[in-house]
Every structure is written in structure tokens, then in C-alpha cells.
């Protein structure tokens, strides 16, 4: 077990634990505006203080962490599912299928994702919701996984055990699911975590720019309200410190898990320590 993976898992585990404990002890309805006095510092009634709209920040942060995780997981899972499918199509099939998919990925990877998402999200006529935002982000979330997993499948396709399976007459699907998938798991794990991390990054970015769901207190919306309502000028330190701390822990945790899994999957990286 390597230290980075362990530290990352510990950080993320701590966040999950805090969210669960919070969900049990805090009244989550207080995440709505006007459920407490406005702009109060931490006190007995509101242990993490309140914001300028009268939301109880303890409730906001619990709900926000869960909602942000939901957006990240949904978009990340779709990205990995689509990415893995495309990667296998490209690498296993080869030929023009591979060329088309690889070209599309190469071109799309040079396009700044956040800007495309800004255009898409701003053209949406109705209310933004977290589910919708996850779907919008998923539109571009498959690019990285496709590229990474395709490279792995290309290498794996020539591995001894895959050739052996082919020679012994196994079908393509059987080879993919019985021989390659189990060996791909560490890569898929790392790809999933980095995909979730990228989706959360994109969602918080969209929200900070004011394209997020205004009725749902995600972590990014908390940052948005905090900046828009001038928390710095008003000296509302708790409103700044709390969401930033959670986001920092979230991003560092996911980063450590990604590096850790990479090390686990690529033994060659271990010598670089």
C-alpha cells in the first residue's frame, strides 16, 4: 500500500464521515434561505454560522458536499462509461474507427472545456439543476478517459495472456470482459477518480461564473454567493473559510488518490519516488 493513496483515501473518507455525521445531526431544511438570522458568526444555534440569505452554513455544507459529489459522480461515471466503450471500439477494432475516434478526441482535447460548457449552459432556457449540470458536463467528460484507456488497451491487446486467449478460441467479448477488464481495473479506478475530479472542477467553475443551480446549495454555489455578496468586504470570515476548506480537502484528496492509483497501476513510477 502506498502512502499517497492512503492519505488521499483518508482525506476523502473524512469528508464522507463528516457529511454522514452532519446529515444525522443537522436539520438539512436549514440549508434554505431565511431559516436563520442573516450573517451570524458561529454560535451555539448555528455552529458554523449563517450567510447573508439566512442559510445555516452547517446544513449548506452537508447538502453542498453531497450535491457536489452527486454532480461529480454522475458526470464522471457517464464520462468513464462512454470513454471506455469508445476506447475499446478504437483500440480493439482499429482501422478507420480508431482514426475517427482518435482524431475527435485530439481535436476536442485542445478545446477549452469550460468555455464550451459556458456557451451550452448559458443557452439553456430553463432553470439549471444539479442533474442537468452533470449531464452538460458529461458531454465533454469522455475525452480524457477515452485517450487514457485506449492507450492501455493497445498495450494490453498484445500481451501474452490475451494472445493465448485468442489462440484458444475465445470470442472478443469474452476476451474483453474476462481477460482485459480485470487487468484494467486499477487504470479504470484512477481514470474514474480523475474524471470525477475534473467534473467537480468544471461544475464549481461553472457555478462560480454564475451558471449553476440557484436553488440548490452546492459547494460551488456557496462560493458564488460568498463572492457575489461581498463576504470579504463585510468580514464574514466563516463564510469564506468553511467552503474553501472543504473544497481544498476534496481536491487534494482526489489528487492523492489519482497519483496513488497511478503508482499502483504503473510499477515503473514507483522508482521515481
Amino acid at each position, binding site marked *: 500500500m502506498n502512502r499517497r493513496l492512503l492519505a488521499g483515501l483518508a482525506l476523502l473518507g473524512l469528508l464522507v464521515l463528516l457529511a454522514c455525521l452532519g446529515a444525522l445531526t443537522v436539520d438539512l431544511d436549514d440549508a434554505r434561505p431565511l431559516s436563520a438570522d442573516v450573517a451570524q458568526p458561529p454560535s451555539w444555534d448555528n455552529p458554523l454560522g449563517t450567510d447573508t440569505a439566512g442559510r445555516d452554513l452547517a446544513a449548506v455544507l452537508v447538502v453542498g458536499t453531497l450535491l457536489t459529489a452527486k454532480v461529480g459522480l454522475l458526470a464522471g461515471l457517464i464520462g468513464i462509461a462512454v470513454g471506455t466503450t469508445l476506447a475499446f471500439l478504437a483500440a480493439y477494432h482499429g482501422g478507420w474507427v480508431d482514426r475517427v475516434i482518435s482524431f475527435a478526441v485530439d481535436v476536442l482535447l485542445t478545446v477549452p472545456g469550460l468555455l464550451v460548457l459556458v456557451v451550452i449552459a448559458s443557452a439553456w432556457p430553463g432553470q439549471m439543476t444539479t442533474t442537468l449540470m452533470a449531464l452538460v458536463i458529461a458531454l465533454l467528460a469522455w475525452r480524457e478517459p477515452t485517450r487514457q484507456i485506449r492507450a492501455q488497451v493497445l498495450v494490453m491487446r498484445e500481451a501474452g495472456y490475451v494472445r493465448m486467449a485468442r489462440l484458444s478460441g475465445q470470442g472478443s467479448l469474452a476476451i474483453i470482459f474476462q481477460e482485459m477488464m480485470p487487468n484494467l481495473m486499477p487504470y479504470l479506478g484512477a481514470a474514474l477518480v480523475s474524471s470525477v475530479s475534473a467534473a467537480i472542477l468544471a461544475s464549481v467553475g461553472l457555478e*462560480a461564473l454564475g451558471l449553476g443551480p440557484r436553488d440548490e446549495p452546492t459547494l460551488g454555489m456557496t462560493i458564488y454567493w460568498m463572492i457575489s455578496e461581498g463576504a470579504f468586504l463585510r468580514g464574514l470570515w466563516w463564510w469564506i473559510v468553511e467552503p474553501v476548506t472543504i473544497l481544498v480537502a476534496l481536491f487534494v484528496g482526489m489528487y492523492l488518490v489519482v497519483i496513488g492509483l497511478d503508482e499502483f497501476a504503473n510499477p515503473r513510477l514507483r522508482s521515481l519516488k
Partner: protein
Amino acid sequence: MFLLRLTKRLLLMLAVIFTAASLNFLLPKLAPKDPIETKLLELTETGGALTDMKGLVEAYRAKFGLDRPLAEQYLSYIKDTASLDLGQSIAFYPARVTDLVGRALPWTIGLLLTSTLIAFALGTVLGALLAWEGAPRLLGLLAPGVMVLAALPYYLLGLVLIYVFAFSWRLLPLGGGFEMTAIPGLRWDFVLDILRHSLLPAASIVLASVGTWALAMRGMMVTVQGEDYMAYAEANGLSVQRRFFSYGLRNALLPQVTGLALHIGYIAAGSVLVERVFQYPGLGNLLFAAIQQNDYFVIYGVVFILVVMIAVLMLLVDMLYPLLDPRVRR
């Protein structure tokens, strides 16, 4: 060889720019109700003060309206965009989008270029030293901190920096491009004022991206150090500096430059958010203001110009390549 590569890259750049422009045209059309027209009509009905809004609606209808075939609208749109006519702002009608973008662009380019160059240079040298056996041990202690910073989005680190240096210690301004009371001009104190305001935004980009470059460079440098020519250089008794810079760093630099070209989009998107957090008067802040006011033409204009800027920067980095690698010059 190089000319062919350059032509290919130029074509790719034009394709990316063209796609971005087309997207801006098509997306509002795909929505069930044209969001721009809805917004404009809403404004004419409610905004008594904006009497001239009718003119904008007419202009929009004439340009994008349903009375003309889609292909024709599209052609005229692309023609306008190619001549950098990005339409007029809805919120600041009749201000032209091109002027608004033009005013913000120098701020963005200044912040983006300086901080990226500093981060790239620092990170590359740091990464090379991390893999170099003779490097001071102290650097090794720096590494974990720099790596953890690389995990953070720029704007998040920006918020931390504002909190520490501007909010708690009050050493630097909370945001903005210059003091509200300052009179712009080419004077020493005004330049200093601008520098003071750009320090934190630039620092958040530099600190958050140094680790990325260092990590990539360390990996490359490890590989390069295993090459035969490194052993040969040592056997020939070349000095440590010569081996480090001319033999090690120089060769490990090539993939690093490719990385720079690939990362420009990511860095630009990140710095848009940094500008928003610091209320820095660049494109990011303009984009934010436009989103707040549903100012569609400004949103599309800013995104389009950013895409063009990124594409041009990528091309420039790509053209650096033959300067570094004699093999591609042929």
C-alpha cells in the same frame, strides 16, 4: 517537413476557430425557444429606460430572424465574425462587443502570459533539479508542498491567498486591476499600483501550476539521465553545469513544450476564474458580468476571442519547437 507541419497546424487552428464560431451560432437555435430573442423581447417590454432596445431587436431579427433561411443567416454570421464584428452588447447597448472585449483583452493576456511563463520556467528547472542527484537536499523538502498545490484549481488557491494576504494581513488589495481613485496613465505610481493588484492573481496561477510542470519535468529528466550520452558526457569530463543544462535539461525540455501547448486551454480557462475571484478587469470578469445580465452577444464574443487566443498561443508554442529541436528543422 516543418512547413508541412506548420500548414497542418494552421489548418487545425482555423478549424477550431470555425467550430467555435459555428457553435455560438447554432446553440441558441437548438434551444426550443431562442433564448436571445426571449431575453430581448422581455427587455423591450419591461425596460422603459432602454428605449432604443427596439432597434437592437430589429437588428437581431434582421440578422438572425426566422424570415431568412438558416443557411443565409449562418453565412452572414460567419462573415461578420471573420471581420471581428461580434455584435452589440444587450446590457450596455449600443456598446460594441468588440470594443468591450478589446478593453479587457490586454489585462487577460498580461496576467496569463507572465504567470504562465514564470510558472513554466520555475517548474521546469525545479523538476529537473528534483531528478538530479547532485541537487541540494533542501529541494526535496519543497517537493511535496508544490505537488499538493498542483492539486488545487487556481481560483481556489486565489481565495486562500486573498484570505491570508488581503483579508487577514491587509498587505495587498482584495481585488480589482487598480485603485478606484487612481488616474490611469503612464506614470510610475500607476504602474506600481497595477503590479500590486496583479501580484495575488499571478501568484495563485504560478503557485498552483508550478507543481504540474515540475512533476512532468522530473519524470522526463529521470529518463534522460539513463541515456548513453549522459554517461558519455560525464566520461568526457564535462562540467556539472554543462551536463545539467546542455545535455539533461535541453533534451528533457522537448516533451515539456508539447505539454505547454496542450495545457494552454486549461490555463486560460483557469485564469478566467481567477479574474472572476479577484474582480480583475480582464475577459473573465467581463464574461461573468455578461452571464449575470444574460448579455448573450458578450458571452459568445468573449468565448470566441478566448478560443482564438488559445489557438494562436498554441500555434506560437508549436513554432518554438524547431528552435529547440534541430531534428524537426529539416
